[in-house]
């Protein structure tokens, strides 16, 4: 995956470059808004990570300019600000996701990987399959190995999100955002409890685990 990082903090940019390279990704770094815009405009990137406050051209206007030129590369906005308002303005300017500094790299990596595959989105599919697990989005039914599994509405949405991003790491905050539509950090690990409950339903009395916990990062739904 080719990632463009537009970040004026040299140290942070170098860290991101190294960390993404370790995760097997190719990173280009731009240190200011104008350079970033010129690189991004070539349109060869899978994902862009844009800092909000940049010299020469701020992040939001850069994104807006790219969008108006028909560039639809997924953008994750990094911000030292970070409140509900900032998130809303950031997403309104054309960003696809928003992460507040300081952040955990595992969180950033998970989000970037999910973003990069948004282009080949599974939105249109009506049935999600992972191994012997099957989720029908129209009839709201879940089956594993031909057996029906009864889920609560929220559990269904949780599984739906996990299956849409099957094979990818999803973090707890991503789940809270996408399944509950809240963006805060709960004090207790409420998400863990929800996931373990769901896991009980889709793994109990089946021989193979399918919903995996990724230490220090989140969860991944993966067959086999």
């Amino acid at each position: 995956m080719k990632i463009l990082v537009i970040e004026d903090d040299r140290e942070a940019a170098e860290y991101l470059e190294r960390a993404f390279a370790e995760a097997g990704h190719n990173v280009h770094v731009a240190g200011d808004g104008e350079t970033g815009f010129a690189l991004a405009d070539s349109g060869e990137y899978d994902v862009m990570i844009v800092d909000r406050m940049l010299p020469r051209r701020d992040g939001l206007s850069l994104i807006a300019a790219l969008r108006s030129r028909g560039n639809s590369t997924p953008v994750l906005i990094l911000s030292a600000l970070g409140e509900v308002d900032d998130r809303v303005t950031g997403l309104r300017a054309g960003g696809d996701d928003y992460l507040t500094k300081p952040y955990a790299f595992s969180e950033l990596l998970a989000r970037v990987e999910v973003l990069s595959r948004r282009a080949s989105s599974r939105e249109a599919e009506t049935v999600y399959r992972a191994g012997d697990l099957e989720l029908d989005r129209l009839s709201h039914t879940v089956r594993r190995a031909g057996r029906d599994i009864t889920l609560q509405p929220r559990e269904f949405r949780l599984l739906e999100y996990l299956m849409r991003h099957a094979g990818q790491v999803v973090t707890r905050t991503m789940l809270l955002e996408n399944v509950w539509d809240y963006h805060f950090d709960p004090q207790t690990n409420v998400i863990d409890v929800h996931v373990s409950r769901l896991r009980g339903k889709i793994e109990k009395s089946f021989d193979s685990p399918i919903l995996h916990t990724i230490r220090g990062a989140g969860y991944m739904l993966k067959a086999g």
Partner: protein
Amino acid sequence: MTDVRNALRLPAIMRTTAARLSALYFILFALCATLLVFYMTSLSARMLTAQSQETIDEEVQGLDRAYRQGGLPVLVRMMENRSRQPGANLYLIADPNGRILTGNVESLQPGVLETIGWTETPFSYQRYGESAERRNRGDSGSEQAPAVSETRHAAIALVSRLPNQMIVLVGRDLGEPERFRAVVRRALMFALGMMAIGGLLIWYFVGRRALKRIDSVSEASRRIMGGDLSGRLPITGAGDEFDRLSENLNTMLTRIAGLNDGLKQVSDNIAHDLKTPLTRLRNRAEAALAGDPAEAGYREALEATIAESDRLIKTFNAILMISRLEAGYSTEPLVKVDLAATIRDVVELYEPVAEERDVVLEADETAAAVIDGNRELIGQALSNIVDNAIKYSEDASGKPTVRVSIEKADGEVRVSVSDNGPGIPDEEDRQRATERFVRLEKSRSQPGSGLGLSLAKAIMKFHGGRLDLVPGSPGLAVVMAFPQAKGG
């Protein structure tokens, strides 16, 4: 130094807006008044001249009739009669060469008799007998020439020629329009003088007053700039624009002082409370280095370090958020938030946690209540409160129960989260519970940053509401009181 000050005093007054305005108004008024007066005098002078001409015309017609009926002798007699009346017009008959034969004019400006018809410009003349009078009075020794010139007057006249080439002049003294003009000029000078004095007085009093007020405001601002943020600008109680300005500036200062205090408190708390986890972080890394150099040990230490850092980040985020909420910062307009739906969401979110801890979590959200707010923030506040309630209801004597309910009363919408745990019996403790980083003694064993309730309180304040801690029997009820939405 004071001499310099005093020397600059007047120019300072001149530099005030009031002084400039007074001067400008004075000049404008004076200009207008002068123009008006000149226009009126020239108009009336022209009218008076026209009137004189009319009178002369009539006289000439009368004389003409007399001449035609009785010839020169009758004309001469008639003119002599008329010229003897007081305030008479000017009458003169001269021979074809311009030598004066009879009439009440002794001498004329040369050349007047040479043009027949109306004299084009007023001319000077001397009445018959006037020079003699002067000469008699002038015997006492004074010079003659100035005395003569003094008695010359301006007049206009109609000069006509009789069939026998004799010249007849009938004229009228212009003394009247001249006097009128003099009166107007005096009046104008007087009015302008009064205006100048009035302008100067207004200038002095208004300018000085304004200057004094501004000086006192500047003085107060200098004190405040000097670091005394508790200082305020003086308010005279006159309710004028200066008072309004001072009031607004004072409100601004109060806000700044409030923000400043908040900032100071936050930085103090950060310094104090983050020192502990940072030290722990450092010690753990140090212990890992000093200990068994096996990979498993490093791994464990690193994971613990990351977990500790995450907690620190969470705490930082919470502090930042509280500060921003208290600063009232928001660009996003408030929207309609369905509190019942928010309660359902949060209860649903926490239900598995409650169940895991064997706590009954129930919601009574039958009363629909929509308020103006920020769904995200309200959800966060409520989940913090529910989170707390679940933690602290565990020590309940009976079956631990947390109940979330909603009611409308006194123009407020109240969402209360009550538990049947030990509660906070002490009034003072209840007050302190919502302060930043305050973790009451009993809760030290529970995980948490000590910011949950402070954040909830800041969120309530942001919504114009309150967060109340009400002792229950048993337990504690945390009440989020929102002002009812406008029109709802």
